[in-house]
């Protein structure tokens, strides 16, 4: 039991990658945001809530910021911010996000 729990946790840890790691068209589910609480709140308000599905949409012509699709909205973030948003690849959505 304990072993399987540790296993799951290791799996979760290793599976969570920075949002910047997603390639064009790739998507994932937000796991957590490693930024100060105020910034977390700010990002959550515009849609980057843990559990929500997010897709890499495109890069700005000059390479940064990048545009992400979250909640059907296109939102641009700089790499410095996106690299702090940790996502798990794929469609698992504990919030039961609306498809």
């Amino acid at each position, binding site marked *: 039991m304990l072993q399987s729990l540790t296993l799951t946790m290791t799996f979760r840890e290793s599976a969570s990658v920075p949002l910047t790691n997603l390639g064009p068209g790739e998507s994932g589910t937000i796991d957590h945001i490693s930024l100060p609480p105020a910034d977390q709140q700010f990002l959550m308000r*515009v849609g980057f809530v843990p559990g929500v599905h997010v897709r890499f949409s*495109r890069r*700005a012509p000059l390479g940064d*910021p990048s545009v992400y699709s979250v909640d*059907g*909205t296109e939102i*641009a*973030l700089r790499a410095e911010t996106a690299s702090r948003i940790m996502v798990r690849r794929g469609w698992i959505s504990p919030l039961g996000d609306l498809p």
Partner: protein
Amino acid sequence: MNCHSSESAVTTLGELPERSGREIRTVALIGPPNSGKSTLFNRLTRLRQKVGNYPGVTVEQRVGLLAGAGHEIRIVDLPGVYSLTPYSDDERVAVDVLTGKMDGLPRPDAVLLVLDVTHLSRHLVLAKPVIALGLPTLVLLNMADVFAKGGGSLDVLKLAAELGAPVAMVSATLGTGLDAVDRFLRQDHDRRPDALLPVIPVINDLPQCRKWASQVGRRIDYRQHLPSVWSRRLDDIFLHKLWGPLIFVVVVGAVFQTVFGLGQPLSTAFQDLLTKLGQQAAPLLPDGILRSLVLDGLWKGVSSVLVFLPQILLLFFFIGLLEDSGYLARAALIADRTMRSVGLNGKAFIPLLSAYACAVPAIMATRTIENKRDRIATILVAPFMTCSARLPIYTLLIAAFIPNRPVVGVLLGARACAMLSLYVLGFLAAIVTAKLLKSSVLKSSAAPFVLELPDYRWPTWHSIGLRLFDRAKIFLRQAGTYILAVSLLVWVLTHLPLHNGHAPQLEQSAIAHLGHGIEPLIRPLGFNWKIGVGLLTSVIAREVIVGTLGTIYGTAPATHSMTLQNALSQDLTFAGAMALLVFFAFAMQCTSTLAIVRRETNSWKWPALQFAYMTVVAYAAAFAVNQLLSALLK
């Protein structure tokens, strides 16, 4: 925040309680940013509104009267907020107004909550705390047209039951569904006893709220509309690696070409019209001091600022076009990489660019910058950009002192070169100041830069027209008041002391004495008292100095037969003239800008700081230029 706390009666639009209660007098309009709240507010009030600021903060206060209501109903447009947790000034203001703690505003009797139905899962989060306030609330699901077109659907009655508040589908841009607002406000609403009101929760657990929103979404059969395929396709072009920046440059270039190409002749025509109006009015006033006060003092001062109105309106028209079509956000996205290097963000680009025409619309356009510090930094550096009011004095001095000879073959003459350097100088001053500000007083709390890219839309004349009207009104009222005051002051100084009841020659006037008074201060810059007088009168607007110098040199016996250009080239040294150019590149000689900065920052602190800083920089730079050139040319 616990999202499941509020318990209010379940009502739908058809079955509102028909009890005789309080009549609705004040309604609050609340919604998240980008929910179309302002468009709706303009629709509902048909522009019968008052714009101001909430006390102590840079949050705009808009209060309007509901159009077509039987009795007077006031609508208060609250700032766009995602939640009622008081994190920012915007949220604090929203909470204070809703709870009746805002000075000068009664507690609203009812609430109109605007949510963008195409982003319901995100926007629904705001519904709970607002409805929990216990005020009669009507939920307006905006963008119903886009939602339906994209194949989205939901069960409105079920949502009303979930929220315990009536719900209506509306489109603020098309003006559909708004009769629900009338019906809602005409009904008498009973206020629940205050004891039953739930306290606004301070802890805000957003993931929890989102979970609730998702569950509600499923229960009301919410079907997301398909994201606009067209928008994605257009983005493939407008944000293309190669075409994106290219189109960006073309769009920006075209806007400026039009603002200058169309704006200058319009301004000239407007100027002629204003002068003619003044001349026509002249016989209506008795000859003497009153006519001089009204025409030479007030009318001249006011028209010197009014002439910028065509340009300002043109700029606002284009900014409105860019904003409403959705391209403004794309431009900000493209510009962000570059703007970041000076400590600002992409949203500052278009405002700063507009400042090349006039700082006033530029400063008003900074409202799209959510980060308060970034916004103030942008406001503070905008007046360094070479605006069109600087051109008259630039062209005059350059023509008088710079010989017309080629520098780079036939391509670039010395005069064009001088003009170009002045543009570069202003730009550099803006960048250095931005860097300085962002590394000191306005060191950002480094709030993440977030830029929403809305779907592309056809701008409507209605919305752009409303905005033009609104901005023109603000400019005329705010700038007008201060311009009148400063013009009056300058007039009084030029007409005192009276000699036998007549105004003195300019050389004997109080302002000439002031000019002589500051001469020791400005002599190190290479300026004489006449330039000093010009500097004093041009606090109204930069180009006023040309008129003042014209009067002074035109009445002086030694120079009265010369053109102003010749007179200046005799009276000023080359070093002094260059110093004057540099002085005007940096100095804050513009009452309208100061008035607008005061309005937009809601304090005297920033315009005062800006004026002091720019004057000091201008003085130091002019001093350096004069001393250096004088030494070199000896």
